[in-house]
């Protein structure tokens, strides 16, 4: 029987890995720096994710928010929204968590070489994009302009303030930020993220946009990019779906014939343009 000859895989067993640092980012977000046993590297591509688990609290897909150029450890940025993610916020340095992965289709960095990069990050969407931002910064000379457009609901939700400070100060990074609802101390721009796109001065043939944000954001960002005449082929986006296995088995993340966990989460826009239910 064929079943005996096929290479069977043990898909669901996590690697117990240690939290080596916890950074408090906002009221609802924390960054965890994690090291795999024996100093192994995760070997991921920017945009990929892991299945993170804490026994008794379940498992969930979490994007890797550090660049593959950082080895021996990797970052997860987690928003507390439920069973597992709330528990993560109670864990401390030295605690063990289960890691499976990396999974999914990340950004193909070879295709991005030499391009101007436009990062459109809505809210926690900055977390998955940060792996690519960090990568492009680590290989700065491989890329043209680096433009980061970032929007959050309010100033208290701004992720990675110290990194942002660096980005703002670097001459070779163009960083733009806005909040939906300012507080008394806010001096920056106010408005939804799409208001940041029209003023941008882009060389559209050379620019590749990478878009990640909450589900409602995509439609409007796409409209804004279209208005700038950015070709569809130059747009990549990462989609979020419920997923349990991360390896194309559990069925939850399917959008029509596409599996987000395998074909995504990073998609080339032309591939999903005609996919109903996708955006």
């Amino acid at each position, binding site marked *: *029987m*064929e*079943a*005996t000859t*096929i*290479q*069977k*895989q*043990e*898909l*669901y*067993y*996590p690697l*117990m890995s240690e939290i080596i640092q916890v950074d408090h980012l906002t009221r609802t977000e924390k960054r965890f720096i994690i090291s795999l046993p024996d100093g192994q590297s995760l070997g991921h591509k920017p945009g990929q994710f892991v299945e993170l*688990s804490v*026994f*008794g*609290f*379940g*498992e969930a897909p979490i994007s890797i928010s550090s660049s593959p150029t950082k080895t021996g450890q990797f970052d997860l940025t987690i*928003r507390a*929204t*439920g069973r597992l993610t709330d528990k993560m916020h109670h864990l401390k340095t030295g*605690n*063990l968590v*289960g890691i499976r992965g990396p999974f999914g289709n990340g950004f193909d960095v070879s295709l991005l070489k030499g391009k101007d990069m436009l990062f459109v990050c809505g809210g926690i969407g900055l977390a998955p994009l940060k792996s690519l931002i960090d990568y492009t910064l680590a290989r700065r000379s491989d890329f043209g302009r680096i433009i980061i457009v970032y929007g959050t609901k309010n100033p208290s939700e701004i992720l990675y303030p110290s990194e942002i400070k660096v980005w703002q100060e670097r001459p070779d990074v163009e960083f733009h930020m806005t909040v939906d609802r300012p507080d008394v101390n806010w001096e920056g721009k106010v408005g939804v993220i799409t208001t940041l796109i029209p003023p941008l001065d882009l060389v559209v043939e050379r620019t590749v946009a990478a878009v990640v944000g*909450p*589900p409602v954001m995509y439609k409007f960002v796409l409209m804004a990019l279209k208005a700038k005449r950015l070709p569809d082929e130059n747009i990549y986006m990462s989609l*979020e*779906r*419920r997923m*349990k*296995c991360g*390896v*194309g*088995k*559990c*069925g*939850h993340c*399917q*959008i*029509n*014939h596409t599996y987000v966990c*395998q074909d995504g989460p990073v998609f080339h826009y032309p591939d999903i343009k005609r996919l*109903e*239910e996708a955006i």
Partner: protein
Amino acid sequence: MNYLDTITRMNLHEKYLLTSKQIPDFISFLKTQGAVYAAQKKGEQSYSYQYVEDPANVVLDYPRTIQPLKKFFLPPREELLSFDYQNNSYQKTDVVAEKRIFFGIHSYEMQGVLRLDYSFKKGNPEGNYLNRRENCIFIGVSYEPDEFHLANALGIEVENTEGLSIYLEPVREGYIAFVIDEAGQNLIQGFGKTAKVTETIHIKEKPAKAKIRYHYNRLPKVFEHVYTSQVWGQIAKKCLGCGTCNLLCSTCYCFDVRDEVSLDLQSGTRERFWDGCMLNRFAEVAGNENFRDELSSRTRHRLHRKFKYLTEESGALHCVGCGRCSKYCPAKINLGTTINALIDDFTEQQKLKEAY
């Protein structure tokens, strides 16, 4: 396929007579060769595949069981690992791959298993499923299609023997056992009490009761054009979202995973359960966004998986026509009727196109 072709094709196999009296003996013999599972009565008028304790309880003439054979390879509830909550360590849960003989299954049931094989082998081949799938022998039996069976219309005839080792066809004296493969040959020989049959056996025609207006080859084509059909909305009016059609489907395999700790709060297990795209939380993500909120889009997704998405990938329809989703749907939504309505919609469209 021509009915006479079937007779000829079947008669090419070696065949033996198992008299009605011999059947229990044969089952007892099978029990010496492995764990035997077969359809048995469950409640008043339903059947279920169960371990055979007593050969007398085995039923060979039955319309269908409640759960399909998938329950043996992808159990409704399966422990993946057990963990120590306090120390954050875990143990893999062994998958026991005993030798199993499935006795008296229908051709579409076998086909259902072959479809699942595809789903679990592709991409990342899953050990849990494939280990359970090893060492299994299937002995088929003929059946009389009822108004819910669509297998014939979908190209899986009653006498389809793919995947089987032996196929049983009822005759006056009992059953003719057609030997399909070596494993089947070994079983028949090991039993040793059967008489070889050399004359041609006339196989009774078993007409399908449910019909589909198109040849099944054309269904993926139909599904390319009915994404926006109003049929989905019509079904959604009756559909209750109970998920029966997913869970009992021969080829649905989606699952959910949950952790549970025991009351001592020391240990626990990670388990997976059957899940289905008709159910509420299936496509919900953080922030309570649900990407398939409407029952109409859920039914559409379910049937597109059966007739288009997986078909384009694998070349085979992923509906095997077992009829469970129609028979057990509390709202009496019938798959054959639905497909015919979609076909009508499609033809209507084509006509309009031509006129245009």
